[in-house]
């Protein structure tokens, strides 16, 4: 699979390393060259310096050949814009993006994008743990 990732933060860097290990062809874009330090040593994929909301940058990163597009920069709106460029300009079916704000996540999910919202996911996981400890406390009392 040819995968293009926009944003080389902790998530983007980790994801790029894992996907390469599984034999995928990965390109990664970030606006800050220091971010690429998060990639594994001798990363075999393509590394492109630039903003993920610029069609020319995305072209350089090989978006025209990509099967999957992932947007995981720190900025929700950058992820939203680059994901829509990937889908509406370059016609990529599989577009996955991260949106922290749950209201925005809901709107763009409705527009057909695959949205991961860490805020709701993490809050849900923590809530589960909290509930589990209160049940345990109740049981032991």
């Amino acid at each position: 699979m040819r995968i293009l990732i926009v944003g080389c933060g902790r998530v983007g860097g980790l994801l790029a390393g894992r996907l390469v290990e599984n034999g995928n062809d990965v390109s990664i874009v970030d606006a800050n060259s220091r971010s690429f330090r998060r990639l594994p040593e001798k990363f075999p994929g393509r590394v492109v310096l630039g903003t993920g909301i610029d069609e020319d940058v995305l072209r350089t990163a090989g978006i025209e050949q990509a099967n999957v597009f992932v947007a995981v920069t720190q900025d929700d709106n950058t992820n939203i814009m680059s994901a829509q460029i990937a889908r509406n300009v370059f016609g990529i079916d599989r577009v996955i993006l991260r949106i922290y704000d749950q209201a925005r996540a809901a709107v763009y999910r409705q527009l057909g994008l695959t949205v991961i919202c860490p805020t709701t996911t993490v809050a849900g996981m923590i809530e589960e743990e909290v509930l589990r400890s209160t049940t345990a406390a109740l049981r032991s009392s």
Partner: protein
Amino acid sequence: MYIILVGGGKVGYYLTKTLINEGYEVFLIEKNPLKCHTYSERFGSVIMQGDGAEAATLAAAGAARADVVIAVTGEDEDNLVICQMAKEKFHVGRTIARVNNPKNEELFRRLGIDVTVSQTNVILSLIEQQIPDLPFVHLMSLRHADLAIVEARVAEHSPILDQPIERIQFPPEVIVTAILRKGGLIIPTGQTVIRAGDELICVTKREREEALQDLLGI
């Protein structure tokens, strides 16, 4: 008419001021608390501190009853999301986005923004109008319909010199709406005769521009 503006930079500031003076009901959303403080001293309570891409902020500003949302921040990605949230979540009828990178105009329209304003393109066209010797200038592009309003000067060797408009075969989809001659304005009729040096203000389809230029000897 109720207008919500997002982004209190220079553009947002002067737009707010002008629209208020013209009697519109205006509300400005700006991220920076310091700016909000200064502006509220000048405009009164029509300013709110917040992130215009956030649903809660838009709701508090009354987006549900807004007729127009205008996003004029310095970041294209923010302007896009502000307008899309206004449309998708609050069903705002008309959204206008400032586009900082002119390449994004086309993209924004494709993504459902009603009107885009690219400063770069606007300034470029204003500069073109001020350069005296340009015989063919775009005054305005109406890209939804692929139309343009142009100003074109009739050359000395144009084939249509000294003929009345009714006898001239203009290219299809070209209309001469006004003629500027020696500083005066002429609203043309079929009998108006074209002279060398006349400035024709035309509405034209983009693809007819070249034919029009040929006809005027440009």
